[in-house]
């Protein structure tokens, strides 16, 4: 009898250690998994293109901008014209981006404002053979301040037109030119961007390349007089209608005084975030139904979401790449650091991850253009974005890295863990007379069955005084059934879980079984069957026999085994069925043994087993006078 008792203790201690260690293992596994995914354990020869991303890069910014032009016009070879802006002046380049929008559709080339373009660059521009824009068929429009040498050099080869700030401010000069060339510009909306911190102007890049909206600079003192008079003239044209002024600058750049001042001219709306990354997200999420300003990304789930991702420290790369969005694609600009994706951007991307329910065929696909080389946006970051862009089934869809199901399971498992610890403490400190095997069995049961097991523990010992010998208590058949079901299910499930873990550790192989028993070859299935055999043996021969030395072990075993076997079988069948349904049918791919989803399926299996085993337990409790063991 002592040997059986010792064996029971060892087995139960082992189960408890494994179950208690679970959350710590999961934490470790989760961290290591994230680290592995970030640590770049990849070889040197991966390509910089992925299925859901394209990187626009070049040896320098001019090269990148020419590549973007080629991508836009490769199919037709007919470039309407080129707009050239200085690479070092992001605002000038942003204004120039307005000319890339249809119907003008110019290609944007960024040049160094002081250094003459190389022969190769000129040859490349010539090869694009711009047809000419406007009535005078100007092939190149220079926007911003360029040296005389550059102007002369370009003028020798192309018909050029210069737009700079020698007259009105540059934004207004470009505005005049856009009005002259593009009659489709919406005069009801105006965007004001920060001239002090151009990073806050960048999120407008893809919007301006598509719409050519009026865009003017603003600083902490408000807009300049020229801008104010331009706003007033636009308001005048509208008559009774209010001019919609979108203030794309955060509070620390354009304060409330500025807003009040502008409020006298038109309807002010601030679309801004605390930092450049958040600022870009604000623009991606915003939408004005009246003027159709903003991308409204998160609320349009059934479309293809296309983004341009850039680094705010490299504005020129982002602006040069934004021209791809002028006609082919439409979508917001996102900003992130070069090495790690910002948590808020990642959350946003997860929230719009494409999904499907029954058929993946009609699922939207998300696509991202990466602005700049790998020093600007790293390769692991690009790979991460590619992964988030991949369409997944709706059932396991997530708003973060773990699915809703997994989050729920984590909560359940947390409750199980805490419940197990509490049961241990409670039974040790408050119920000292309870036998050790019984105590350990209860702890195991609560750890496996979670809050349901805890409820069983409470119901089983409710109303008993703490220091009265619990073993001698007499319970009603209903309570006996609860105790019996919870403990048998808990211990059976725990043994099956641990057996599967051990089998997996040994490298469970698929067996090529043939005929109608083909399914037996699946290691997931045969490990469940082995788990059942182990659980039945342990419960029948070790845990269930009475530990009372006055009762013969063999006699007790002989009398009890049909009861125990039926209970264990019921629990194991229900557990296996639930696990099979979850792992083989409802999860889109098999959960990795030991990971959250796998533990979760085991927890659900144990809870399901309780439902089926309780009626059987009730039957035995009513039929047998000596049923109560736990």
């Amino acid at each position: 009898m002592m040997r059986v008792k010792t064996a029971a203790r060892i087995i139960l201690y082992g189960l408890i250690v494994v179950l208690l260690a679970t959350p710590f293992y999961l934490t470790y596994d989760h961290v290591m998994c994230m680290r592995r995914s970030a640590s770049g354990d990849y070889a040197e020869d991966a390509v910089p293109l992925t299925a859901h991303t394209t990187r626009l890069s070049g040896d320098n910014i001019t090269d990148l901008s020419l590549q973007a032009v080629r991508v836009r016009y490769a199919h037709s070879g007919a470039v309407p014209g080129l707009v050239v802006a200085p690479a070092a002046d992001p605002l000038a380049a942003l204004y120039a981006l307005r000319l890339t929008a249809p119907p003008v559709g110019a290609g944007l080339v960024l040049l160094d404002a002081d250094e003459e373009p190389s022969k190769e660059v000129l040859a490349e521009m010539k090869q694009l053979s711009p047809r000419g824009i406007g009535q005078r068929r100007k092939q190149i429009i220079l926007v911003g301040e360029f040296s005389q040498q550059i102007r002369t050099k370009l003028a020798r080869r192309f018909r050029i037109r210069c737009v700079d700030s020698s007259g009105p401010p540059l934004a207004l000069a470009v505005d005049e030119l856009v009005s002259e060339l593009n009659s489709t510009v919406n005069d009801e909306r105006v965007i004001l961007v920060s001239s002090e911190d151009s990073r806050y102007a960048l999120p407008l890049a893809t919007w301006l390349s598509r719409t050519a909206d009026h865009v003017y600079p603003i600083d902490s003192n408000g807009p300049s007089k020229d801008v104010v008079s331009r706003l007033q003239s636009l308001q005048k044209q509208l008559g009774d209608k209010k001019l919609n002024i979108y203030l794309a600058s955060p509070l620390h750049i354009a304060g409330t005084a500025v807003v009040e001042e502008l409020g006298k001219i038109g309807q002010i709306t601030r679309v801004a975030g605390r930092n450049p990354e958040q600022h870009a997200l604000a623009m991606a999420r915003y939408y004005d139904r009246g003027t159709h300003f903003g991308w409204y990304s998160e609320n349009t789930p059934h479309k293809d979401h296309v983004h341009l991702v850039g680094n705010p420290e490299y504005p020129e790369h982002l602006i040069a790449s934004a021209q791809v969005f002028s006609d082919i694609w439409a979508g917001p600009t996102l900003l992130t650091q070069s090495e790690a994706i910002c948590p808020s951007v990642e959350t946003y991307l997860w929230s719009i991850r494409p999904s499907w329910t029954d058929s993946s065929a009609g699922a939207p696909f998300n696509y991202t253009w990466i602005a700049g080389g790998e020093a600007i946006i790293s390769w692991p970051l690009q790979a991460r974005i590619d992964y988030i862009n991949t369409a997944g089934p709706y059932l396991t869809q997530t708003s973060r890295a773990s699915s809703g199901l997994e989050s729920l399971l984590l909560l359940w498992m947390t409750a199980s863990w805490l419940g197990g610890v509490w049961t241990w403490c409670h039974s040790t400190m408050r119920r000292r007379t309870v036998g050790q095997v019984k105590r350990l069995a209860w702890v195991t049961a609560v750890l496996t069955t979670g809050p349901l097991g805890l409820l069983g523990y409470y119901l089983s010992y409710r109303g008993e005084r703490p220091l009265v010998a619990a073993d001698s208590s007499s319970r009603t058949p209903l309570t006996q059934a609860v105790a019996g079901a919870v403990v048998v299910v808990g211990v059976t499930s725990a043994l099956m879980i641990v057996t599967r873990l051990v089998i997996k550790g040994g490298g469970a192989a698929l067996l090529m079984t043939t005929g109608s028993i083909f399914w037996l070859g699946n290691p997931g299935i045969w490990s469940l069957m082995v788990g059942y055999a182990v659980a039945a043996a342990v419960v029948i021969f070790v845990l269930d026999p009475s530990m009372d030395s006055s009762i013969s072990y063999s006699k007790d075993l002989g009398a009890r085994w049909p009861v125990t076997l039926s209970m264990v079988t019921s629990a194991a069948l229900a557990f296996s069925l639930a696990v099979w349904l979850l792992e083989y049918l409802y999860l889109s791919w098999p959960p990795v043994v030991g990971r959250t989803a796998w533990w979760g399926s085991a927890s659900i299996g144990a809870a399901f087993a309780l439902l089926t085993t309780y009626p059987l337990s009730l039957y035995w409790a009513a039929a047998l006078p000596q049923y109560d063991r736990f």
Partner: protein
Amino acid sequence: MPSNDYQKSQRKLKIACYLAGGLLLAAILAAYLLPAAYQYPDASRQSVRAQREFGTIRQIPCDDPLTVGLTVSQTIYPATGGSARPNAVVLVPDDDWRTAAAAARLSALPVDAPVIPIPSAPLPELVLREIRRLNPLGILRDAGAQVLLCGDLPSGVQRTLQDEGFRFRWLKASSPEELAEKIDHYLSILLGDHRSETVIVPVDDPQLAATGAFWAARRGQPILFSHQDSLPEATKRALDLRPRGAFIYVMAPAGAIGPDAIRDLANFGHVQRIPGEDAAELAASFAMYSDSGDQLRWWLDAIPRDMGWAASGPGLSPVFADEESPLQAMVSAALAHRGNAGPLLWLRQGNLPEPTQRLLRQLQPQATSHLVSRFNRGWVIGGPDQVPEQLTNQLVRLLRKREDENE
């Protein structure tokens, strides 16, 4: 008045509970905070395969199946971490399109693998480097097998993989029909059930087989072979294992799989023929084909049936390949799984066949609000020799918004 012992035990209980709760909270917080604070390390790499980007088309300008396989693998698996790595790599002989067709379904879950065709000579160093780069996670329910060898491959491959320390499984059979059966058998054990939807392709027509293989790579449905007038025994055995019958989709016109074979197939379930008189027409009609509903299963495991690309508007991501290079099309089928690409559409001798052109015009996006926009974006498999630049440009135009045609 409670005794001292009772009070002490109660205090101990509280302390123990607080400690346990704190420990668990710390563990959960650590799980979520540590990765967020982690910075990606710097990485220097070089591009081995040049792909051409045309805005709405990306071209994989490779002329041989091996290079196409490697490029597709590198495109869909960045291999920067667990989620970006495949479970396995499938190696097939580069002179056997039937094996490639049957193995295409291994690209889909639960295996999740690129298919790389290899020559009969020793395993090329390029392939070995690719397997090392991918460092496959291992098939969960098959002792972590990292490489699946399919068909007649040189025995040296096995030795090389052993030397490299990769776990592998070799699926081989005496005929392509039996290999298809074996792959079906292997996946049925892996999934714990046989898929009801079955794609039947002619054993003598690589273009038709590739069209089916592309879909199989997306959804993992079995590819089984048929002769023109009869059903091979291996195919019969595989179909017979579906106790409640199968939904059988025949990817061939009557000239390729005749009425006698169809009659044989009808013994095993519900048969439907995908319409189309030749490969291009059948691929175009399969692009718009959709059949969904209940499975022939018990209510408990009656997951919905799903067959066909169901293209009815923009949002298409077709893969274009030349009819002369069906093996290249088959090994690029993995794009349908991870790359969200598909269907496969055929090009014919540097031209766009009429059915393909008609389909593209029908599904061409129109200028709409950015709130509802769906885009078309395609892949072209093959270099300028197979797919001339003029044809690529035509495809780019057909996938763009309709208003752009007048440029």
